[in-house]
């Protein structure tokens, strides 16, 4: 019987084994991105910008051109790369501390300028890499190492809804929030990122994809419990859906 290959590791992934925690959404999203870049035939024409945070090592796993960026600055590093190489697929991949806290100015101005690039925003409601501190996205009442009594909105403010915020800017073409908790949601997430990439390749402008991602280690949950937490709690505050889609 002839062999039929139904699945193989994307060429856009290196042989490096993901070093992320069990149940972390980063591994899933790294693979989703790599699959898409293969499918779009863009491995040799992609330049990615990695954040500071858990995904700081993204460049160890992706086999296309990648640079680091200082904490929060990924969108402006990506801006310059795209301006120098307008024919390349350029994206920034950032976490919530990176994008919504220290890099808030960078993401807002990049979106407002309408740079023709794609930003993938992984929201796991805390600073994962540094041990689970409160992020701008930490849910009300959520306990973290710097909000041991739970996030108090009167003291710490309310969690930022970035996908909705991005949709406010005239120059933003596409903003969607997805999650990665099961096969169906991963397929949806992939579709969203694909749309963001295609927008860019078609010269349409700035696309923003927020991904609700689990952090079992810092949430003190089992991986499956963390997925369920996204389905039942996190996505209640952060509703899934398309907030902007300019044809």
């Amino acid at each position, binding site marked *: 019987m002839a062999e039929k290959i139904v699945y193989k590791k994307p060429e856009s992934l290196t042989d490096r084994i993901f070093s992320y925690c069990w149940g972390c959404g980063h591994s899933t999203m790294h693979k989703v991105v790599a699959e898409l870049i293969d499918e779009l035939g863009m491995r040799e024409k992609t330049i990615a910008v990695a954040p500071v945070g858990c995904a700081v090592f993204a460049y160890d796993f992706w086999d296309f051109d990648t640079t680091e960026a200082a904490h929060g*600055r990924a969108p402006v590093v990506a801006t310059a790369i795209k301006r120098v190489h307008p024919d390349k697929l350029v994206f920034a991949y950032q976490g919530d501390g990176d994008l919504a806290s220290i890099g808030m100015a960078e993401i807002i101005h990049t979106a407002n300028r309408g740079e023709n690039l794609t930003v993938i925003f992984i929201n796991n409601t805390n600073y994962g890499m540094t041990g689970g501190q409160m992020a701008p996205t930490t849910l009300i009442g959520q306990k973290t190492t710097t909000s041991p009594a739970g996030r108090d909105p009167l003291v710490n403010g309310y969690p930022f809804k970035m996908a909705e915020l991005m949709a406010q800017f005239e120059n933003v073409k596409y903003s969607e929030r997805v999650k990665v908790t099961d096969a169906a949601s991963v397929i949806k997430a992939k579709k969203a990122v694909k749309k963001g990439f295609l927008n860019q390749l078609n010269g349409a402008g700035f696309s923003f994809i927020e991904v609700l991602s689990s952090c079992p280690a810092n949430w003190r949950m089992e991986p499956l419990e963390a997925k369920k937490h996204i389905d039942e709690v996190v996505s209640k505050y952060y509703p899934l859906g398309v907030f902007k889609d300019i044809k």
Partner: protein
Amino acid sequence: MSAGKQFIKGNTAVVEAAIDAGCRFYAGYPITPQNEIPEMMSWRMPEAGGTFIQAESELISINMVFGAAAAGARAMTTSSSPGISLMQEGISYMAGCELPAVIVNVMRGGPGLGNIAPSQSDYFQAVKPGHGDYHMITLAPHKLSEMYDYTFDAFDLADKYRTPVMILADGLLGQLMENVELDRSRKPALLNAPKPWALTGASGRKGQRIVSLLMQPGALEKHNMDLNEKYNIIKRDETKFELTGTEENPDYLIAAFGTCARISKGVINLARAAGIKIGLFRPVTLWPYPYAALKEAAKKVKKVFVFEMNLGQMVEDVNLAVEDSSKIEFYGRPGGGVPTAEELFEFIKGKVK
């Protein structure tokens, strides 16, 4: 702007030098006294086929320059002292990632918001820049033709050593207008030199990365040692200075850079008229500092006068070079104070009696 003699500002010379050197990416944020540079770049860069972005902060300027440099472009930003403080983040990343770029600092008075008068109070933050164990090549022009020449040369230096280079000017050099003859016949030697490390898309090759994060045990230590080896080559090959007035076997020496060196040339004329023979040692590179040359020059004089528009920053390096603090006489004007030649000459007279 054409070649030949013209009446221009120092800030204009910086723009034209960058264009002539093949700089095709500029990001900058408004701050006095360097605003002519982003203003002019906003039309000059597109005219030359390059990219101008008005960044929304100096953090954004420098990180855009990081991205453009990573993508292989000749990139520049400019600012003045408080803005340079913000840029220290990106400059450190570029040093760590070995990315070439040119940063022009048109210094003003500090600390804090300070004022907008010319100052030399950023000597420290140029030659002893931000976090981590690294150095930044720093060139100090003292006249407008050098605003052009040093900026032009900075791009080749940055590419040659894959390192950020700072032009340390000040509000006087930026704002001053004078007749200046620019040599615009030169071609940047390394403009078309290949940059195999740059991110251009992994065409026919594995993906490559630009990183300064080295977590494997010993990896960062080795990286620092490699950087240091590069710095040692720069010290050996790129240290530059100007020594004038030594043919008269002077009894005294002035050590000054930038605007203070310019004023010191007037001081030397006043001194000569009064029968006091003084030479001038002007470091062109503030890092690497010309220690050996200054040490040699200082051996032949009774005193070394150090003049700065700050309260004593370069004088620390003069001390290291001269190795005899009893020989050193310092006079400085902080906070935007610009000394006159007469004022400096009075100081000298008081010390040589």
